[in-house]
């Protein structure tokens, strides 16, 4: 039986949408960008090389906690050892990529983006979706989206580590402090954007004050909530530029590690 806009009793119009603008442009662009990122990051995770160029480490491989890591890249030890599955050494990237991947996958903003562009549920507002049934996030697996906050907490830990990576990038290749290169800037920018993305997140807004009933009884949390609310308004922006930031940081480190370019030192 016909459902949705073709249901009985509704105005009989045979078009799925009457929108005249280019409504498909945005989901198509989102689809393209997200897919490129997935392809690139998969390639990089499997590459298992060129992610460490003293003192720069790629965000895809930090912290490098497996014994399969390149020499010198493990700032936090190698507690995992080496995992081999079907004769293949599991890339150290996999152990940590789970966190940002999970954080972004369950992020309220990215959910909107990929539900629209990948799942077409709906492709755009007032454009009928192609699915016969829809249950939203009420059952497995999508009910797991409610675990967003756990990824948020883990993501904060990762942010601290990536900030550490940016700080140690204020050394030269000999480990002496007080130097700064283009790589330092790249990693600092990456860490900053990731902080903005995490702090502007809806879960952060909730945790820091949104869950309170009375703001007046918690004036400091109210201030913090107001600040995070402001950031939250730009959450989509931070989501995108921090994604580009991570990719860019990785590309930069890869090129330096491969010797394609030299990491230019200002001092």
């Amino acid at each position, binding site marked *: 039986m016909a459902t949705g806009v073709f249901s009985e009793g509704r105005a*009989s119009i045979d078009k799925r949408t009457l929108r005249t603008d280019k409504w498909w442009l945005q989901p198509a662009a989102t689809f393209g960008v997200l897919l490129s990122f997935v392809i690139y990051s998969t390639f990089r995770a499997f590459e298992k090389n060129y992610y460490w160029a003293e003192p720069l480490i790629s965000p895809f491989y930090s912290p490098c906690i497996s014994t399969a890591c390149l020499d010198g890249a493990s700032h936090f030890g190698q507690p995992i050892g080496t995992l081999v599955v079907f004769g293949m050494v599991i890339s150290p990237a996999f152990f940590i990529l789970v966190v940002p991947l999970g954080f972004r996958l369950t992020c309220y903003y990215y959910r909107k983006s990929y539900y629209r562009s990948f799942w077409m549920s709906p492709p755009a507002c007032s454009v009928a979706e192609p699915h016969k049934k829809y249950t939203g996030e009420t059952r497995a697996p999508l009910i797991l989206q409610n675990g967003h906050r756990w990824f948020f907490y883990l993501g904060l830990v990762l942010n601290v580590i990536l900030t550490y990576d940016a700080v140690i990038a204020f050394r030269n290749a000999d480990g002496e402090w007080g130097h700064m290169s283009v790589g330092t800037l790249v990693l600092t920018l990456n860490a900053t954007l990731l902080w903005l993305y995490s702090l502007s997140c809806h879960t952060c807004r*909730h945790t820091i004050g949104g869950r309170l009933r009375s703001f007046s009884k918690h004036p400091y949390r109210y201030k913090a909530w107001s600040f995070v609310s402001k950031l939250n308004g730009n959450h989509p922006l931070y989501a995108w530029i921090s994604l580009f930031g991570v990719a860019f940081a990785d590309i930069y480190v890869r090129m330096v590690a491969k010797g394609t370019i030299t990491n230019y030192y200002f001092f």
Partner: protein
Amino acid sequence: MAGKVNLRIWRGDSKSGDFKDVQVDANEGEVVLDVIHRVQATQMSDLAVRWNCKAGKCGSCSMEINGKPRLACMTRMNTFEEGETITVTPLRAFPVIRDLVADVSFNYKKAMEVPSFEPPADLAPGEYRMQQVDVERSQEFRKCIECFLCQNTCHVIRDHEENKKSFAGPRFFIRMAELDMHPLDTIRNRKQQAQEEHGLGMCNITKCCTEVCPEHIKITDNAIIPMKERVVDVKYDPVRWLGSKIRKREGI
């Protein structure tokens, strides 16, 4: 843009209907509703259209203009290209009554299902004390003019008639958020109700409701997502759940 404009108006009832093309005068500064009224006065005196205040304050003239849910009184003619044909239909998530008038009774039924504000028993009228910062969140949601454009655009029911039973829709999620954030409301299980009875979990936050809101209420960011987070607090977060059992309070 003075001169003639081309309008494609859907005419019909719940059984059948079709588009009718008309050409009508439009003057500078007019909105779609003016032009529809002119059609009514000069060419189709029985064209059904619902409207009241004509100033974007009552939320009556909801319809779809070039496929987008809009208030006809807030859609200026100068936002269209010269010579563009403007297509006007009734809301497509609800049954049609006639021409541009849809049957929005679904929304009134849902309104009946949300438990009302329950004041504290020990406060007499006039004794209520609330701080401005504590009422502001709920005040945003009370700006709602009940145009039901958010309900209409929401794919959960727009595209799935069968979900109407179990889904209250954005308008009522902001109502639940309003009450859950109300400093003096005494009903404490609104979060569970939102999830278990009103279908909050059906929402996949694709934000169309926010996009169409003529009052610019941040439905998704300020009501639905905070409610989803509050639901996680009481249903899916073992740490918080344990905390609430120990401290005997749900939420703060």
